[in-house]
């Protein structure tokens, strides 16, 4: 029997390279004659470049050339360009300089004299809504493709409500949806909880800054890129450079994290190729951490009001949610997702959502692991506890009661899910955490330390459908799986091949994963985001494996006689009534047969992008290639229930997370260790958001100060929980052949929730309802000191 691959731990095939220094990330590539490129970043949060005097720069020894905004595509409306003459945030790239060395780049950039006209800027989106508040763009603060720019403001009366601590009722919300009857919902409620909420923006700060190296050779671009996705990023780069994708050799073997900031690559990855084309030399664009802070994206912050009604039995009957979102200069969609996730997590049946995405002159926002969901789960969970407290209900019971089943439809269109095991996850987690006993410790004081129990529920998308799988069994008897997805550390490149390999009855050492280099063939793939990949590409590879299996059996039947269906595969052999063949023999046979067997003919429904990839391997062995036609209906969402115990020191406001327990619904578990790592890692990221990571601007000059790691404060190993445990419900998703869903996203909101609820619990139920919950805020609250800033102020700390 071949080994079992699904649900079994293994060392990913790229691990050895990662710990011996052989793994090459974008900045590790070199080319003959390589020169460097650096960016000149805007010193002002909003300005117009009136003039650039580069005469002194051009005399710097080693200087090669400058690239200006006029040389790159300038899209209309609030869309990011690679370089701009009207920077919308402090740190936006104005121009790029190439020189023989980085030192020369730096010296040349310093020698450039800029003539800048400062323009009004807005940092706090709520300030931008004030009647005479500043706008992020000179043209206004709202943009639509049809009507162009306009200006949207609230009234003084609205702000009187805001200033009085109430939810305002502004006219013409920018986004609005309702479901059910919200009035009736609140009328039915015994308890109504209403809070104003602030969630800060958080820079992604993946470990690897988004460096790029590029050169052109005989009209062909060779690009070495830091990106989450691979094949899709290649397509994006081809679009940005207006070249044929097949004229790009795209390399992204390893990526040092992205968390949503490098999904289809990123805007500035195309600068090195452009500069290289301009100067005819290989160009290394080494992005520094400082630059990463600016061009590296951030999660949008929220200023929100939530009103939730609960029946006497604890059932949530209505949610009225309103979010003002810091969209940065180029927009973000988090708030919409947040509204849907609030609905699906607490199943009120009656809900109104009003959204106000506001452009600001702060670094650009983008999806960050659980975008929208992480913010809203982290911020609403303490409100659930407030309701439980007022109703004198158990905190777990109220969550189980309100958690959805598969019957509940999400959002205004009541979208149904393929599977929903939220209640099961909560029960599993409670068992693992020993909730019954641990909850007794809540509020217990030991010296200056108080125990707080945190719990929360979080969900996010976990799959997508319709991509292509490509694999070849070569005459060496091994299965070569060609992956078009990226390799940002989630182990998807190998995890998604395991169900396929298992289907083909192969041991893991008979499987080779090919990834990260488009010259070796990348089938049409999903972007590596939204926790889609485990679902999407275990399906796509499964489809390709089914195709391969069909062909193997057909060849066996042809060769050995009998009915193809009577043949089975095991240990790299196909066996059946006529005897057996090795895969090596099958591969040779496939090459001899040609046609569909070795890829000479391809299925007609393949994506156009897969065809060239498949063509690279025509005739090399038995090809399994197929589109994921498994179909399915409804959204694919995974769930994470989280439990935690903290000890809060009431004299210092510091706390230590003693325990963390994650229980997840991800359908079938493909790779347990990796799943656990996703649960913990995401949770700790969420905890970092809740407790330390920040986003601070000087209001006078609009300049961010949390612009490096020690001021941005991502969580360190000392901040991680002292003990951690996880488990999975393990009920397969019925709509996917592998049963597996993704998990990356929901863990972030869960981690945030476990701290926001635990801290509130340790503080006797008081919800500060803002993040990050740093020692200063906690100790000030405990000592009854006034908040040093406005209740809804953003970007402070």
């Amino acid at each position, binding site marked *: 029997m071949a080994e079992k691959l699904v649900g079994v731990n293994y060392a990913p095939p790229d691990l050895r390279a990662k710990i011996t220094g052989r793994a090459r990330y974008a900045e590790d590539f070199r080319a003959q004659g390589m020169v460097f490129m650096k960016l000149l970043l805007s*010193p*002002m949060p909003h300005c117009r470049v009136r003039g650039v005097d580069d005469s002194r720069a051009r005399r710097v020894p080693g200087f090669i050339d400058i690239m200006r905004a006029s040389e790159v595509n300038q899209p209309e409306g609030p869309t990011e360009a690679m370089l701009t003459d009207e920077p919308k945030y402090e740190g936006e790239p104005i121009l790029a300089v190439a020189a023989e060395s980085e030192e020369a780049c730096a010296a040349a950039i310093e020698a450039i004299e*800029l003539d*800048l006209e*400062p323009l009004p800027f807005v940092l706090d989106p709520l300030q931008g809504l004030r009647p005479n508040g500043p706008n992020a763009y000179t043209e206004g603060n709202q943009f639509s493709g049809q009507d162009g720019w306009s200006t949207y403001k609230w009234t003084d009366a609205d702000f009187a409500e805001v200033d009085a601590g109430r939810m305002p009722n502004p006219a013409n919300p920018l986004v609005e949806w309702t479901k059910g009857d919200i009035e009736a919902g609140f009328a039915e409620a015994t308890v109504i909880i209403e809070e104003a909420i602030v969630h800060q923006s958080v820079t992604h700060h993946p470990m690897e800054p988004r460096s790029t190296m590029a050169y052109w050779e005989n009209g062909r671009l060779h690009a070495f890129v830091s990106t989450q996705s691979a094949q899709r990023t290649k397509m994006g780069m081809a679009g940005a450079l207006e070249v044929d994708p097949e004229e790009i050799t795209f390399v992204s073997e390893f990526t040092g994290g992205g968390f949503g900031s490098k999904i289809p690559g990123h805007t500035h990855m195309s600068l090195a190729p452009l500069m290289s084309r301009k100067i005819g030399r290989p160009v290394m664009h080494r992005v520094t951490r400082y630059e990463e802070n600016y061009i590296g994206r951030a999660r949008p912050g929220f200023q929100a009001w939530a009103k939730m009604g609960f029946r006497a039995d604890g059932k949530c009957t209505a949610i009225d949610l309103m979010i003002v979102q810091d969209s940065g200069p180029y927009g973000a969609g988090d708030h919409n997702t947040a509204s849907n996730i609030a609905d699906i997590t607490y199943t009120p049946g009656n809900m109104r959502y009003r959204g106000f995405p506001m452009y600001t002159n702060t670094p650009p926002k983008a999806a960050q692991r659980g975008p929208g969901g992480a913010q809203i789960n982290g911020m609403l969970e303490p409100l659930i506890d407030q309701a439980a407290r007022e109703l004198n209900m158990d905190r777990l019971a109220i969550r189980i009661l309100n958690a959805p089943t598969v019957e509940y439809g999400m959002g205004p269109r009541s979208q149904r899910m393929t599977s929903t095991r939220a209640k099961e996850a909560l029960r599993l987690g409670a068992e693992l955490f020993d909730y019954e006993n641990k909850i007794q410790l809540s509020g217990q004081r030991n010296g200056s330390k108080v125990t707080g129990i945190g719990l929360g529920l979080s969900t996010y998308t976990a799959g997508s459908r319709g991509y292509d799988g490509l694999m070849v069994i070569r005459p060496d008897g091994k299965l070569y799986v060609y992956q078009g997805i990226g390799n940002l550390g989630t182990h998807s490149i190998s995890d998604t091949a395991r169900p396929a390999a298992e289907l083909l009855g192969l041991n893991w050492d008979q499987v080779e994963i090919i990834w990260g280099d488009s010259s070796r063939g990348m089938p049409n793939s999903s972007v590596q985001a939204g926790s889609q990949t485990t679902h999407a590409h275990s399906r796509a590879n499964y489809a390709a494996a089914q195709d391969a299996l069909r062909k193997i059996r057909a060849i066996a039947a042809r060769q050995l006689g009998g009915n193809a269906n009577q043949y089975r595969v095991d240990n790299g052999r196909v066996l059946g009534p006529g005897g057996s063949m090795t895969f090596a023999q099958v591969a040779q046979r496939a090459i001899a047969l040609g046609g569909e067997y070795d890829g000479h003919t391809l299925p007609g429904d393949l994506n156009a992008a897969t065809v060239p990839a498949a063509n690279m391997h025509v005739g090399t062995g038995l090809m399994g290639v197929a589109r994921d036609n498994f179909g399915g209906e409804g959204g694919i969402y995974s769930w994470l229930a989280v439990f935690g115990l903290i000890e809060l020191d009431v004299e210092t406001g510091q706390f230590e997370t003693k325990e963390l327990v994650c229980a997840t619904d991800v359908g079938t578990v493909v790779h347990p260790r990796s799943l656990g790592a996703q649960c913990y890692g995401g949770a700790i990221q969420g905890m970092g958001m809740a407790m330390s990571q920040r986003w601070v601007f*000087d209001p*006078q*000059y609009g*300049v961010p100060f949390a612009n490096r790691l020690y001021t941005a404060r991502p969580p360190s190993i000392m901040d991680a929980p002292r003990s951690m445990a996880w488990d999975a419900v393990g009920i397969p998703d019925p709509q996917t052949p592998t049963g597996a869903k993704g998990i990356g996203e929901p863990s972030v909101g869960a981690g945030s929730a476990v701290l926001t609820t635990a801290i509130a619990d340790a503080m006797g139920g008081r919800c500060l309802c803002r993040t990050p919950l740093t020692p200063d805020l906690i100790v000030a609250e405990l000592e009854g000191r006034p908040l040093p800033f406005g209740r809804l102020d953003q970007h402070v700390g």
Partner: protein
Amino acid sequence: MIELFRRDQNPWGQDILIGVSWDLMWMALVLAALFMVGHAIWFRSRAGAAHAAPAAVPPGTPERVVRHTLASRIFHWSMSAAMLALVITAFVPVMGLEIPAWVTIHWIAGVALIAAIIYHIIHAIGWQDFWSMMNFGPSFFRDLFAQTKHLMSASAPEPKGGKYPLDHRLYHHAVLVFSLAAVVTGVIMMMRIDTPFFAHNPYLLTDETTGVVFAIHGIAGVMFILLIASHIYFALRPDKRWLFWSMVRGWISRDVYAEHFDPTKWKATGDSSRPGTAATGALADASVSAPKEDA
């Protein structure tokens, strides 16, 4: 190369003025020293120069002619103390010698100076010969001409003036201009530090305007190095020492009055509050008349 101003980049990378260069302080000190040495040499070279004969003293001129009332002396000395404190706290730290809490001393001295100035203005307008000091009419230019002539030519005697001779008036006006400049800019600067008077706010003015304010304050301060140095120099010079004593005691002797003043322009009065002035000791008289002998 001496730099006149200090410039820097504001947080947006724009070039801004932040104040005067401290090279100017050293320059002022050097200039003050050069002036003193130059003046001493010049004065010696004019040893045999013409002198106007002592004026005929009108009958009834008291033995002790009151030159500075107690009120104006109090003003003068309190202002001097404030000025000295200001200049010392301003420049000594720049020279590298530490004065703990110099900013606090500086602004308190500044406030004292402002108080003294306000007192002085009221007192001058209400009780002193304000208009003779502020006279910029034809006589001012006549005096200016005569004084210039005296400086240019050894044969032209120093013209005699009223109570406030031209050089005193010019000095006063210079002090007035620079102290007002220093005070006005100083008050604006106080908004950037912790004082009981203002809510601290560095952003009331733009970066560039702030730089101009600091530069004016700095220029005024540097000018005070020159003014104070020359003032002390003259006060200590033997030929002018009577002036110093007059600011200490308030009066000058009849002889000094006759020698240095034109009784038609300044009608001498005695100290009505002290009828016995004539009986003051000989030592004082000797001191007062000493310049005459030296000269």
